[in-house]
Structures are given as structure tokens and as C-alpha cells.
């Protein structure tokens, strides 16, 4: 353990001391193959980190992080994971899941910061990251060379402010972006600067050229619904969920779906459930055959499961501060801020002495 990385050390931070090492369970075989499980960012009394869990929810390895992490991008071969910092952070950490070693650290340029989400190209050579060009108040998708210490090799325009989750659709050519619409600047951390004028969208780009393929906006009365998270459903639909920035009143639906060339549609939950969401969704995931999507509402302490074909509500999982969702085949697991990993039927799988952060990834 205690691996020092062979990498470019970046400007505004680098992983200091302990953060450049791996803490692994004693019995863990470094070259263990065929691992599967979950990855999530977390917080402990000692600081921020990311962890690899096995399918029983036991922590197998931890990577300390220099700041709060957010989501994880998995390489197509599922051998590498890149953990992104939460906005307005600027670090990314590559984790080799075969050896449990940190194999690269990188940062966004000084005039950009990450939003916490990204994905790999189908061949694994490039990493795309949602970023804030904060001086220009424009969102962009930074492109990094995963085979060359994550040197930044370009960026695509996102055609809006505040891109958050970015996913590559299964055609492998189209990038779907949840463009939240909220302007922020690192000089005023996490302060929302344009609530009256925000204009969230679902934006689609051609992965090879960056050209705009499609962009849809919500109706004017929902211009303050910040679209944050997306997942690809069946038949080329993109499911999305958001966080409403206006006054919380009845009638705001925050989950929906969209297909390129069509108008977005919203899902109206029963009134009490809708209120219970507090108009704030934390994450969204689709199961392996795309028959179900799950959306978490950490402020409402529950997750819903919706049939992607019939659009029927087929399940509710209650758990305090529930947020991260990962699919395991046809089913879902979820994590919460109390350190619990939960099955979709509500059964607690494990309890760790950590706070699981917003997103959970299975691999």
C-alpha cells in the first residue's frame, strides 16, 4: 500500500499525503480478478473518500480524496473508475479496479471546474466531463485523453449553463446532457446566480463532432426545474429528474422522459408523494433490461420505481436520506447518508460507519 502515483501533478491541488495512498482490507488480493460490486464517494470523520464495496455491501477498498467526490465514470471494460469531485471541485482520480491502485490524478483547467459527472468513450480512450466555464457562464464538456495522464484535449459547447449528468447513449454516438440551467461561480461557492433567468434543457450532442443533435426546454412555468440527472430507458428514451428552484407548491412534477425529436413528458406522482419529494430528486438509474427506472428523493426519504413502458409506479422504498441508486441486473440497490446499503425491497444489506454520497455505481 502507500502507492505514489506516476502522474502529472496539477496546479490547484494535489492529493496530499494519505490521500495518495490506498487503504485496503488486509485480506484483499491486489490482483483479484472478476470483482464486482459498487463504488461510491463517501464522507467519514477523517474526510472525503471513495470506496469499493462487494455485493454484500462490505467495503473492500477506500481511496481518500482531497475534497468531496460525486459520481464515478466506469471504463467500458469496467477495469477503471474515475471519481469526479463535486462542484465546484476540480479533481479527478483514476482508480484501477483490478489492483485497487490509484493510477492517475488530474484536474480541470483553472478557468473550469467539474460538475461531478462524466463518461468514457466506447473504446475507453477518452473521458468526457461536464464542466463549468464560469467566467463566460457557459457549460462545456471537457475531453481528456485517458491514455495520456488525462491531458485535456478539447471541449464541446453544451449550449446552456450548468451541465450536470452527461451520459453516452447506447448508440454510442449521442451524448445526452442534463443541463441544469443554474449559473455558479467558484468565487461564491454554490451560490446560485441566475434563478430568475435559468433555462434548463435536455441537450444532445454528436460524440464525434460535438454538434448539437437536439435540445429541448421545459415549458416556461417549469423554467426553474433544474434538470440534473438522466438515464437511458428503452426505445431511445432518456429519463430525467430535477430539483425545483422556485417556491415549493403543488403541481410541480420533477420526473420525466424524452425522446429525440419529440417533446418531453412529465410523470405526475400522486399528490402526497409529489409533495413528499420536496421537489428535489437526488439520482436516477435504469435496470439492465431498461424495464424499470428508479428515482431517489433524499429530502423525502424515499425512492420510487417506475415501469418504463406502462409508466406505472411499481414500488416505493423508504429510507432516510436515500440518494445513490445502482442497478444489479433487473433490480436496484440504494445507498443513504446513514451509511446503509439497501435493496429495493427496503432490506438493509450493510451498515458502514460512513456517509454515502449522492451516487452509487455498480460494476
Amino acid at each position, binding site marked *: 500500500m502507500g502507492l505514489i502515483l506516476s502522474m502529472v501533478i496539477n496546479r490547484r491541488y494535489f492529493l496530499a499525503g494519505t490521500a495518495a495512498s490506498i487503504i485496503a482490507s488486509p485480506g484483499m488480493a491486489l490482483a483479484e480478478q472478476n470483482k464486482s460490486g459498487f463504488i461510491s464517494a463517501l*464522507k467519514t470523520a477523517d474526510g472525503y473518500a471513495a470506496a469499493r464495496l462487494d455485493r454484500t455491501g462490505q467495503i473492500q477498498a477506500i481511496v481518500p480524496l482531497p475534497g468531496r467526490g460525486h459520481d464515478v465514470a466506469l471504463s467500458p471494460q469496467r477495469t477503471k473508475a474515475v471519481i469526479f469531485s463535486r*462542484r465546484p471541485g476540480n479533481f479527478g482520480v483514476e482508480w484501477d479496479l483490478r489492483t485497487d491502485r490509484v493510477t492517475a490524478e488530474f484536474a480541470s483547467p483553472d478557468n473550469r471546474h467539474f*460538475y461531478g459527472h462524466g463518461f468514457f468513450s466506447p473504446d475507453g480512450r477518452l473521458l468526457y466531463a461536464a464542466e463549468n466555464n464560469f467566467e463566460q*457562464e457557459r457549460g462545456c464538456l471537457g475531453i481528456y485523453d485517458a491514455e495520456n495522464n488525462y491531458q485535456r484535449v478539447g471541449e464541446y459547447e453544451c449550449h446552456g449553463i450548468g451541465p*450536470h449528468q452527461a451520459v453516452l447513449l447506447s448508440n454510442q454516438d449521442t451524448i445526452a446532457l442534463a443541463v441544469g440551467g443554474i*449559473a455558479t461561480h467558484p*468565487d*461564491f*461557492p*454554490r*451560490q446560485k*446566480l441566475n*434563478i*430568475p*433567468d435559468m433555462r434548463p434543457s435536455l441537450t444532445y450532442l454528436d460524440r464525434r463532432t460535438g454538434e448539437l443533435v437536439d435540445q429541448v426546454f421545459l*415549458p416556461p412555468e417549469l423554467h426553474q426545474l433544474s434538470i440534473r440527472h438522466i438515464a437511458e430507458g428503452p426505445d431511445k428514451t432518456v429519463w430525467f429528474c430535477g*430539483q425545483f428552484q*422556485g*417556491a*415549493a*407548491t*403543488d403541481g410541480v*412534477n420533477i420526473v420525466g422522459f424524452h425522446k429525440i425529436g419529440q*417533446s418531453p*413528458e*412529465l*410523470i*405526475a406522482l*400522486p399528490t402526497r*408523494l409529489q*409533495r*413528499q419529494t420536496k421537489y*428535489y430528486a*437526488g439520482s436516477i438509474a435504469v435496470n439492465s433490461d431498461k424495464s424499470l427506472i428508479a428515482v431517489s428523493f*433524499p*429530502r*423525502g*426519504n*424515499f425512492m420510487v420505481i*417506475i*415501469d418504463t413502458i*406502462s*409508466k*406505472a*409506479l*411499481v*414500488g*416505493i422504498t*423508504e429510507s*432516510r*436520506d*436515500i*440518494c*445513490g441508486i445502482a442497478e444489479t441486473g433487473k433490480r436496484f440497490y440504494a445507498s*443513504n*447518508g*446513514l451509511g446503509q446499503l439497501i435493496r429495493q425491497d427496503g432490506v438493509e444489506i450493510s451498515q458502514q460507519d460512513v456517509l*454515502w*454520497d*449522492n451516487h452509487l455505481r455498480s460494476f
Partner: protein
Amino acid sequence: MNIRSISWVIVAAITFGLGSAAAKADEKESYSAAIDHFVFDFAIPTYANFQASTEKLDQLVESLCATSTPAALNSVKVAFRNTVLSWSVAEVIRFGPVREKNRIERIFFWPDTRSRVQKSVNAQLGATHENLIAPTTLLSGRTVAIQGLPALEVLLFRGDSDRLAMEGGDATRCAFAKAISNNLVNISREIFVAWHSPDAFQETIRTAGPDNPRFRSDAEVIQEILKSGAEMTELISAVKLRPALGDTAKKSKPKRAAFWRSGLTLENIQANISGLVALQEKSRLSDLLPEAERGYARNLLFDARQVENTLTKLIDEKKPWKEQVTETNSRTLLLYLLNPLGGVKDILSIYYPEILGLQLGFNSLDGD
């Protein structure tokens, strides 16, 4: 746009967190009493003061436009200061009607990282005749950058503001100022009415329950009040002070502060702190704590007093803000403020919620 009403396939028996926490009867009563105190002894009087200050400001702007003199301009500046101070107390309430219809941004569009206020004011002053703002022009549909206190501050305190005091006046500028002051009157009235009328937001906050569109329980209301206070302290530290101070004196950016043009930066923060103290005291939040834990309420008062005393010292220096952020002694005092402010924030965001069992989850905080 299509909206699909969702159908149920599996109906689970649902009981939810705070709403179903089966709060003890005495807890319920004390929560309800604290909410009433918050509404009637803090929120309503605070917004009444704000409304009164905007009305006074509006009258004086009208007088200035009728008779443009240095004395009239000075009276408007005094009224502007009073409005900023009354707003600064109200600024502590970060939920409810002030969050509807973009009112908070229309009153106080700040931070303004791209100088939208200055640019919008300049554009308006240079507008062609048909686009000029008249004293009676309703600003509610225009950009928030020209609707509130920051835009009025530019008109009243920028280098060219003495045109408002010239004989004959500057009709364009004065009409613009009058439209803003009138707009502030309208917004402050709307907020006051929503709190004061029994069937508006006052009803929402006082009748928490399963059928309430906003609050499922009184505990949620108390949580919102505490969160509001904690957010205010974070705003002071992370947004009003740190960006202006920078990591070093050389990296300071004094114009990142609120109300730097009018010299009200520190008084704005001081009134924010007074508002936080009033929020706790007028709402009798300490009554919610068990006897043995009420020391936390006293700690809040102690920390707040440290902030207020330090701010008084800084205000009494009568130095320009630009110098205070760089000059060693003043800067030391400004940096010191962050310590007791952290104490106030911890009490509102950690200790009160923990003792009352109202912690917001890690993932429930303003997130991503």
C-alpha cells in the same frame, strides 16, 4: 407538454420520516408555539419594518424628483440606508413569499459576478426616448438586475449620482430611481400581506400536516426556520466576506462585497446578525431545548455579540471598505469574524437540529 398521471401497481403502506415521527404531544405544542412566535413576533414585524422603510424611501425619491437639491439627495441616501438595514434583518428569512415570484432577487440581485446591474443601469440611462422608464413604469416584468436595491445603489452612489441633485434634476435618472423605489414598495407589500393575511402563507406555515402543500409537520417548519438561519450565516461567511477578503490582502476583491458603493457592507452584515439573534429570541427557540441544553442558545448570543462588537469596531474606524480589506489591523478583525460566525452556524445547523432530532441528511443538503 404531456403530463402522465401515474397509476399504482403496488401500493405500499407508507409512513414517512418526520411526518410520522409521532412527535410527542409536548413537543408538538412547543413547536407550534415557536412557530407562532416566529410568525407574529419576528416575521410580520420584520416585514412591516421593511415595508415602512420602502414607503419612506419612495416618498423621498418622489420629493427629490420634484425638487432636486443636495439636501433632498442626502435624505434619499439616508432612506436608502434604512431600507438596506431593514432588508438585512428580513434577509434572514430565506423561505416563504420572499422566494416566490423571484422576489428575493428582485429586491437584492447579488452576487452579480458579471456586473449585470451596472450594465443594465447604463443601458437604461442611455435608452432611447420610447424605452425610457417613467416613474410609474412597472418593473416587475423587466430584468431583476434593475428592480431592486443594487440598481438604486448605483443610481444614488456612483460617481455620477450628483446629477440627481442638480438644479432642474436629471429627469431620466430620477424617473428610474422612482420606478425602483415604487417597485420595492410593491414587493415589500406583497411579502407583508402574504405573512400577515391569515389565509395566505401564514396559514401554510401554521397548519402543517399531511394535507399541507408545503409542510407535513411542525417539525419541518422548525427545521426550515433553523435552516434559514444557518444559510444566512453561511452566506455572510462564504459569500459576503471571503470572496472580498481573498486568500491574502493582495488577492482581496473589495468590489465582490455587497453594498460596497454605498459603504453599507459592514452595516448590512451587522443587521443580518441582529436578525439572526432576533430570529432565535423572538421565536423563543431556546424553549424547544431541554433545560440542560439551553446553553447552546446562550452560546449563539455570545458568538453573535462577538461578531457585532467586531463589526462596530470596524464601522467606527470610518475607513473606506477598500482599505479595510487590505490594511492589516482591519483585515485581521474581518478575518476574525469568520470564527464566531462559524459558531453561530454550528449552533443553528448542528446543535439545535441534533438536540431536536431534526438533522438534515448528508444527501438532503443543497446538493447536486
